[in-house]
């Protein structure tokens, strides 16, 4: 691959403001990417503190730390903050940094709008977190905001609704930006089927975002009008149906969970070949698998609703469709394993995290499959089994992949090698404590502990105590990551342009740290 390394003096046409104004007004994809990443980490910590409060309350039976209504607020906000504040923006941050570098574009297609997409998030976060302080507190209807409970809530619910609107706007603009960048700004010679897999997964994710975020906006708008303007969308007395909310929500919600995992697949698909020193096995089938997952994700939503009492044919349809998703996901897992097979593997932190990802995510996928079997799901739905399932795919899936990606690209971002020791320590602590926290939840769920409860019957005490201990351990382990990043930004071993010898891609043709402007003249990809 040939690349034009930009002339570092080539800054004449931009008079970049300095200080705070630089960050407020920037149109640079790297600045914006950095802000996304920092924002999402801050949100991860705040969501994490909520999680720890939940775990502290659940350490023992009885009410000790918080009152039930506040507990429900914490659960709800933990879910919303983690999903919309931490995981999604983190992936957008990666997209901002990496996509232009990977496809040889000078920036995102709409650099100014890109800035707005980011700067909409802090206001949304202010509305969301600020709702804790309005009379009545934050919404406590669960992150799924099921009507009619959400119709009952106090003022905090309205803040959450508008926060979701704003975040939705941000996501849609961000997604359009990514789609257009990928479709229109590839360097000459960079055909679609040569594109790094991360770009592919993001392209498909962006389609999903554009398709489903407006649906969520519609759903919460209906809640808003049901709350304040007398409509009866979710009120049977007026001819509506509470279950209709769930249909609309999960039409958004299920694609949403793939929005949170597909870019993770992309990151892992970059890292595994780099450390196996061997090209990715089955590139084309990876692309097709990603697309099939995305398409299937639109026809499985009601697997979250097996207990609402739908007809048997409905249950069967959604059960079969959901089970089908295991096939393309399996193709991915097998491809990764095949890439490692007879490779020359080395386990630096990025690879450790990626391998850990495959292992633990697959467990989460299997529990997902078990949830998909309607008769079993009727037993486990709304129990800690489901909580275990989705933390296995979200924490061990999305979050682990994010860490993998961070260690992988930090040299490119900061110009320094992240500390290998801290990275490995972070990984092993996280892996162990993660399982200590969430593995027992499977047993809790099977034994019959419902989710979203602040207090529980005595037979659940032991596993809950264990999970709580694990949660605090896992939380503390994340401070190692903070330390590793701070250390890496401050200094450390200077990173060469291509710090990982097996890595492929345009991003490794520019110096580390990547200069402020890259590929102003498009590189030629052969």
């Amino acid at each position: 691959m040939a690349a034009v390394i930009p002339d570092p003096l080539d800054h004449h046409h931009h008079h970049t403001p300095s200080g705070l104004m630089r960050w407020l007004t920037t149109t640079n994809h790297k600045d914006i990417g950095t802000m996304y990443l920092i924002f999402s980490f801050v949100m991860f910590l705040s969501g994490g503190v909520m999680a720890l409060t939940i775990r502290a309350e659940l350490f023992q039976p009885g009410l000790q730390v918080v009152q039930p209504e506040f507990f429900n607020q914490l659960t709800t906000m933990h879910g919303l903050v983690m999903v919309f504040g931490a995981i999604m923006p983190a992936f957008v941050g990666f997209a901002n940094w990496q996509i232009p570098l990977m496809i040889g574009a000078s920036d995102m297609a709409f650099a100014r709008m890109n800035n707005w997409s980011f700067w909409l998030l802090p206001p949304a976060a202010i509305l969301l977190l600020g709702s804790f302080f309005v009379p009545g507190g934050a919404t406590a209807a669960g992150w799924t905001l099921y009507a009619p409970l959400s119709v009952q809530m106090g003022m905090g619910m309205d803040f959450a609704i508008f926060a979701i609107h704003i975040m939705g706007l941000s996501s849609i603009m961000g997604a359009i930006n990514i789609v257009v960048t990928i479709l229109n700004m590839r360097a000459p010679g960079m055909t679609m089927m040569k594109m790094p897999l991360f770009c592919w997964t993001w392209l498909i994710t962006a389609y999903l975002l554009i398709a489903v975020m407006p649906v969520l906006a519609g759903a919460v708008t209906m809640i808003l009008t049901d709350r304040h303007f007398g409509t009866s969308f979710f009120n049977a007395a007026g001819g509506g149906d509470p279950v209709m909310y769930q249909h609309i929500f999960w039409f958004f919600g299920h694609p949403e969970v793939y929005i949170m995992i597909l870019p993770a697949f992309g990151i892992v698909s970059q890292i595994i070949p780099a450390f196996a020193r061997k090209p990715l096995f089955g590139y084309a089938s990876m692309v097709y698998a990603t697309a099939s997952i995305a398409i299937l994700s639109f026809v499985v939503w009601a697997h979250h609703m097996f207990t609402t009492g739908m007809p048997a044919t409905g249950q069967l349809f959604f059960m079969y469709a959901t089970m089908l998703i295991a096939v393309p996901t399996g193709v991915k897992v097998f491809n990764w394993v095949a890439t490692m097979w007879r490779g020359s593997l080395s386990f630096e932190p990025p690879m450790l995290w990626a391998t850990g990802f495959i292992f633990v995510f697959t467990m989460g996928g299997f529990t997902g499959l078990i949830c998909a079997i309607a008769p079993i799901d009727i037993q486990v739905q709304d129990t800690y089994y489901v909580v275990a399932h989705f933390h296995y795919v979200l924490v061990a899936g999305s979050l682990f992949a994010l860490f993998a990606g961070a260690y992988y690209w930090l040299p490119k971002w900061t110009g320094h090698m992240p500390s290998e020791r801290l990275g490995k320590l972070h990984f092993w602590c996280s892996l162990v404590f993660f399982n200590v926290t969430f593995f027992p939840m499977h047993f809790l769920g099977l034994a019959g502990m419902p989710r979203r409860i602040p207090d529980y019957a005595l037979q659940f005490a032991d596993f809950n105590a264990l999970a709580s201990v694990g949660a605090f351990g896992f939380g503390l382990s994340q401070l190692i990551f903070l330390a590793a990043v701070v250390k890496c930004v401050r200094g450390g071993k200077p990173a060469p342009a291509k710090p990982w010898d097996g890595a492929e891609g345009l991003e490794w043709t520019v110096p580390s740290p990547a200069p402020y402007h890259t590929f102003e003249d498009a590189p030629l990809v052969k």
Partner: protein
Amino acid sequence: MHTLMLVICLVIFVGVFGVMFWAVIHHRRSRGAVAANFHENTTVEIAWTVIPVLILLGMAWPATKTVIAMKDTSEADITIKATGYQWKWGYDYLQGEGEGIRLLSSLSTPRNQIEGAAAKGDNYLLEVDNPVVVPVGKKVRVLLTANDVIHSWWVPAFGVKQDAIPGFIRDSWFKADKEGVYRGNCAELCGRDHGFMPIEVHVVSAEKYAAWVAEHKEKAAGAAADEAREWSMAELMTRGEQVFGTICAACHQANGKGLPPTFPPLDGSQVVLGDKAGQIDIVLHGRPNTAMAPFGGALSDADVAAVITYTRNSWGNHTGEAVQPAEVKAGRNKS
């Protein structure tokens, strides 16, 4: 049916961990090796698309049979309608032996156990004041609905979990083959005390069941006579205090101060101090789109009369007015 599920679970788990360890060994073995260069193999790729499909088909088959069996609610011996309220369950025996029985069943674990002031009992949070009683070996069909928000009626040992949707009826069934006490929880987030609305089902022999039904019928007959007559203020106040404690205090609090802003105080409320008909209307029909649900279905005329009298003459409210069951009856008919 439940065992069947567990078996499926186990089979899958064994399969799952087989695949997983297989993969792990692969990673390890290749450590340190020189990279081979292959990245495409259509046969393998097709194989690992097709084999999972077959495994999935194998899983889908028994699951399908179970789904169909679970949906078959025909030919029930007894039909019970369960209604979810924030935060308790109401039961109406609609059909079969015991027809006509109604009861309200709420958490009976004392507050001090929850707050840690007393040692927790064995059935902590899983015990109720009025359990549902059913005969052993009979197919019981449960109709579910809710009064305010969605709840979910779940007794793990019966393998039954069915959401109770306000304004709609859903159904499910179970048949208990062994006598005993079966416990469960509300499984759908329904607000503050979602964690505190358990379900307790007593499965008893046919004779015991008949005795229980007879006892209940007697009580109900007494209550019906009560409805008609004129009540004294003192009677209304005692009955009212009791109803308020079990039902209204969950939101409006025993001291009548509520939990503003969500739950308004009744102490000093304009509605409570105002026109009687207005309050009767609110309590019977609720306020749409708020937690204040209609209680006309759950409470008898006498209960409503008593609780209204109680709220009008407690705390700082001194209207001195008593509300009679007859007035409530009129309120029901009016709209």
